[in-house]
């Protein structure tokens, strides 16, 4: 049975709201006298929805919205607002509140609002649970550069959700993935040589555009396969270009090469991933990320 937590410092108003919601036999009501008390109770048991007054001592409704959004992003908060607090209600909605109900119309609107918000939250919670079961996915992408940041951001969320990486290591992983994807797009599918970039930059950009429009480059795709568990991530990125020999690349950290514009993508991939392997043709790279485990001495194994 869904649990509604009613937060209000006035015992009379709490009873009033509890009575209105109690008309539904499908809801269980719990109470808290202010935002702090509500958060303490949520540490023990998380309700399905929070209905809160706006003005309360210790922690008001607006602060409670912010705290719940941060700590329990799947728990919706509905505000009860008094006359003249519309502006604060707008702030609360911007901060992540699911809805608000003016106190003057609680009797007619509150129960319907709670039921609607619960229905929407249930759908979202189910989606999230479903995504929690996902350990892999694959993508086939056109030569459109704007897809790469979108994909990297998606993978960043995926690896964070699975617990494979903490925030910092997740960022490192994203750096490596972005390099691999850009490498596959520009050097793989569009067959653009790094050396071209060292010359006329306007001409280089024109060449990128020309290749995007002309065959055989135009029809080529990027194939991305992702498999992520809480301890291991494998990312396979394949392009349809001619391939290359990674061993032929100059060392970008050699002082003689520091002024060169390119050649650092593979270095970053190797630095931030646990393993980077190319296939024989050089058009497919497999990047492996393993979960870092802290030893008793606090160092990473």
């Amino acid at each position, binding site marked *: 049975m869904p649990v509604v937590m009613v937060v209000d410092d006035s015992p009379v108003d709490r009873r009033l709201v509890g009575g209105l919601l109690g008309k539904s036999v499908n809801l269980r009501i719990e109470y808290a006298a202010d935002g702090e008390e509500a958060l303490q109770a949520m540490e023990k048991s998380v309700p399905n929805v929070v209905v809160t007054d706006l003005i309360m001592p210790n922690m008001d409704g607006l602060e409670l919205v912010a705290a719940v959004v941060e700590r329990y992003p799947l728990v919706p908060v509905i505000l009860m607002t008094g006359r003249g607090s519309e502006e604060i209600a707008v702030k609360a909605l911007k901060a992540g509140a699911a809805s608000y109900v003016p106190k003057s119309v609680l009797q007619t609107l509150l129960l319907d609002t709670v039921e609607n918000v619960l229905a929407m939250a249930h759908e979202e919670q189910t989606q999230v649970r479903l995504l929690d079961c996902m350990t892999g996915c694959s993508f086939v992408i056109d030569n459109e550069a704007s897809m790469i940041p979108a994909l990297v951001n998606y993978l960043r969320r995926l690896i964070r959700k699975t617990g494979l990486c903490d925030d910092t290591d997740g960022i490192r992983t994203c750096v490596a993935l972005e390099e691999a994807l850009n490498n596959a797009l520009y050097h793989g599918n569009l067959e653009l040589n790094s050396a071209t970039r060292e010359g006329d930059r306007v001409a280089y950009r024109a060449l990128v555009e020309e290749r995007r429009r002309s065959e055989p480059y135009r029809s080529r795709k990027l194939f991305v396969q992702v498999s992520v568990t809480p301890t291991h991530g494998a990312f396979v990125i394949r392009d349809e270009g001619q391939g290359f020999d990674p061993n032929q690349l100059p060392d970008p950290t050699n002082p003689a090469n520091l*002024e060169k514009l390119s050649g650092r993508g593979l270095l970053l991939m190797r630095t931030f991933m646990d393993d980077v392997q190319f296939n024989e043709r050089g058009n497919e790279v497999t990047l492996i990320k393993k979960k870092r485990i802290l030893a008793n001495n606090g160092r990473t194994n």
Partner: protein
Amino acid sequence: MPTPRYFKVEPVSETLVFAAIHSIGGLVEDEARQEWDALLEQLSERGAKNAVMDLGALDYFGSIVLELMVVLWKRVSAQGGKLAVCNVSPVGLEILRTAKFDTIWPIVATRDEALSMLAG
């Protein structure tokens, strides 16, 4: 010039400060290069000698931002100026060190420190 999407430029005396507008983890390479090349023109337009690269808005960056910094460095070096880098995130610092750029560019904590260093 179209409105910059990734970077902004602020003149401070003889120095131009190049700063990321917001976290651009995942910028679109072609757009970033085009925008950067246009911004670099301000070095000569404003008669600026030195440059500061302020990376404060970035959680992370990759080889494309490194490339843009090399282009900037080469431009200011060609006119006898210097480049300083500031406000670098922990991962950003790892990236600069990995690429060995910490051996050629001064990397300092704040923009003020970078500006004083170049002025001194």
